[in-house]
C-alpha cells in the first residue's frame, strides 16, 4: 500500500516524533509507514487520517511503495 503520510506531515511542519505522539505509536512506526514498509492497521489508518483532517483514501492508496 502506498501513502502520502510524509507529504501530509511535512505540510504541517511536524516532526516524526510529534506525529508518533499524536498517534500513540513509536517513531519507528511513523518511519516505517512513510517508507511504505509497514501497512498500519485500519484503526491506526483512520487516526492518521483524522490527525491530518483528510479522508483515508486521500492518504492511502493501493499499490506497492
Amino acid at each position, binding site marked *: 500500500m502506498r501513502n502520502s503520510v510524509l507529504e501530509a506531515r511535512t505540510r504541517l511542519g511536524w516532526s516524526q516524533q510529534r506525529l508518533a505522539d499524536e*498517534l500513540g505509536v513509536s517513531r519507528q512506526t511513523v518511519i516505517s509507514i512513510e517508507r511504505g514498509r509497514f501497512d498500519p492497521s485500519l*484503526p*491506526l489508518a483512520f487516526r492518521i487520517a483524522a490527525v491530518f483532517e483528510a479522508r483515508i483514501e486521500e492518504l492511502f492508496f493501493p499499490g506497492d511503495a
Partner: protein
Amino acid sequence: MGDGVARSRWGRSRLGGGRWSALAVALLIGVVLAAGFGALAAATGVVADHPLLGGVVFAVCTVGPCAALGYLLVVDRDTIAGATRRPEESVESGWYERAAAGALGDIVVLAGLTLVVATFVPAIADLPLRLVLVVLIGVAAASCALRYLVARRKG
C-alpha cells in the same frame, strides 16, 4: 503525550496505587520467589551432598529471572518514560509477532527432525529431559531474537 502521568525510566508499580517504584517491588518479589525456589531446591535435594549450599546457589541463580518476572507482573507501563500509548499498533509489535510465529515454526521443525533422528539413534532418545528442554527454550529464544533483529534491520 501530556496526560499528566509521572513517568520514569523503570516506571511505577501497579501495586500500591503507583506509590512504589516498579523496580523496587520487582526486586522484592524476585528475592522472595528466589528464596522459595532455593528452599525448595534444598528440601528436594537438587544438590544432594550440600543441600544448604545448593539452595543458596539455586536462589542466587534464580533471583534475576524471578525479579524480571516480578517486574513484568507489577509495572504500570503507562508510567515508563517513552512508552507508547498503543504498542499493539506499532511496527515493533508486528516484528515481534512475525518473529514469534517464525520461532514456533522453527521449534516444530526442530522437534520433528529430532524425533526422526532419535528413532534411528537410540543414544539421542536417552538424552536427559532437562537438557532437551533447555535446548528447546534456547533455540526458541535465539530464533525469535534473530528474526526480530532481521525484521528491525529491514525496517
